[in-house]
């Protein structure tokens, strides 16, 4: 069915351009929204000075970051130091390309798909890109030639590698039920049967917790740990290089929310409203939950983080995958 689509390359190019810019623009205004929501949860107003309701705040922040001096430590490893934030930003934006946000539309002779690319191994590609993103964090901290950055990047690396295992295992159940690694196929399978959040509730919970740790969000934001450690791998970064790291982390959160919607909540499917609207509504709900969690839960200790990751999350995710496999085989 996918092969029969008549979609010339320029439609894909336009879609890729639009999606990449939508993700970046969405990121900018999500920072505003997050600060607003966190503010209201703290009985504050949040940003309200730049423009009406502080709506120009992301633009002001961007201009500030661009105009700031990009400090370059004398001992830093030249190429890697500059390249690390670029890689982080690129992988974060690229990972979003495999997430479907709508069905196929037919416009005259052309078919416009609601996804940028439909890779048969979309899920693997997404995890691979996020793993390359981990390299950026590690290399960025190492190439700064600062012991604090190095320790910070070690901390980040250990956390992300530990939780990546649980993250990948927790979606195994979904893959087994959908018989496919393509995210489009997974959504279509859910339309045909049932949203996977019902049979895969354990998978959803483990995926969500591992995802929070993977995107370095509170209560697992130890790589940054603003209040007690100030910063981690990006200690020596400033200006837009620092901004790119933050952008990458934030877009990773959007991508992960999109992935959760796609894998467990039927992606773009929903009654009455068009697909992209449903996708955005579900995505927004997830992102709100991320912000809500940041306002509520205190940060874990590092040993708690490691113990939870290896002794609780990983066994649960493994057992969930095994049980799902047995049931799928037994049912047929």
């Amino acid at each position, binding site marked *: 069915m996918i092969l029969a689509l008549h979609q010339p390359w320029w439609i894909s190019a336009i879609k890729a351009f639009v999606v990449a810019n939508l993700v970046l623009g969405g990121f900018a205004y999500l920072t505003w929204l997050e600060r607003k*929501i966190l*503010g*209201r*949860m*703290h*009985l*504050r*107003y949040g940003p309200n000075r730049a423009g009406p309701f502080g709506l120009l705040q992301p633009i002001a922040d961007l201009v500030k970051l661009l105009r700031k001096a990009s400090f370059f430590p004398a001992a830093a490893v030249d190429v890697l130091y500059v390249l690390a934030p670029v890689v982080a930003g690129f992988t974060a934006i690229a990972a979003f390309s495999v997430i479907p946000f709508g069905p196929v539309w037919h416009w005259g002779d052309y078919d416009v798909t609601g996804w940028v690319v439909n890779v048969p191994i979309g899920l693997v590609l997404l995890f691979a890109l996020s793993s390359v993103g981990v390299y950026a964090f590690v290399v960025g901290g190492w190439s700064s030639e600062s012991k604090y950055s190095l320790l910070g990047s070690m901390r980040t690396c250990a956390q992300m590698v530990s939780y990546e295992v649980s993250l990948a295992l927790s979606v195994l159940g979904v893959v087994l039920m959908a018989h496919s690694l393509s995210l489009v196929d997974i959504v279509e399978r859910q339309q045909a049967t049932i949203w996977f959040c019902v049979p895969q509730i354990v998978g959803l919970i483990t995926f969500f917790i591992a995802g929070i740790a993977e995107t370095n969000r509170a209560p697992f934001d130890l790589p940054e740990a603003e209040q007690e450690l100030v910063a981690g791998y990006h200690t020596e970064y400033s200006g837009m290089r620092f901004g790119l790291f933050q952008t990458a982390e934030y877009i990773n959160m959007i991508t992960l929310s999109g992935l959760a919607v796609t894998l467990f909540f039927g992606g773009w499917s929903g009654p009455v409203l068009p697909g992209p609207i449903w996708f955005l509504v579900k995505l927004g709900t997830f992102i709100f939950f991320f912000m*809500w*969690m940041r*306002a*509520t*839960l205190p940060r*874990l200790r590092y040993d*708690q983080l490691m*113990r*939870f990751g290896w002794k609780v999350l990983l066994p649960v995710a493994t057992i969930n995958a095994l049980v799902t496999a047995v049931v799928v085989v037994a049912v047929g």
Partner: protein
Amino acid sequence: MSPQPIGSLKGFAVTLRQIFRKPITQQYPEYKRPVYPRFRGRHRLHRYDNGLEKCVGCSLCAAACPADCIRVVPAENTPENRVSPGERYARIYEINMSRCIFCGYCELACPFDAITLGNEYELSEYNRDDQIYTKDMLLAPPVKTVPSADAARYDTPEPVWKTSA
């Protein structure tokens, strides 16, 4: 680490509830919270009712200043040029506001109550040179004023060491 799911859920409810309440932030430049009457802000130099300056240029304030931010250069009063009632007056009286720590020791040290600390706290400048307040500036009433709470309600009575002298 004992998991406490009920407690965590309660916490989520608490944070969600706050969204619907009115923020308690006081919007500063629009609303200025009144300071207490004895709040120590920008300095003032005072004159007697007949227009003579109270300051006699004794430099006790400069001696008392822990931040060493006061500079006093005295000069002799003459019958033609009488500035203060005493023998001498302060020809130059400067306070470097970027160093001042607003401790009020100058006020305590002054034998003639010539210098007091007012309530004004909006003292930012774009230039460090502008932070040096000259005698003319200190003698004139402050350009920016801030609201002050009712003195009768908050202020303590005149201290004994001032009234019994």
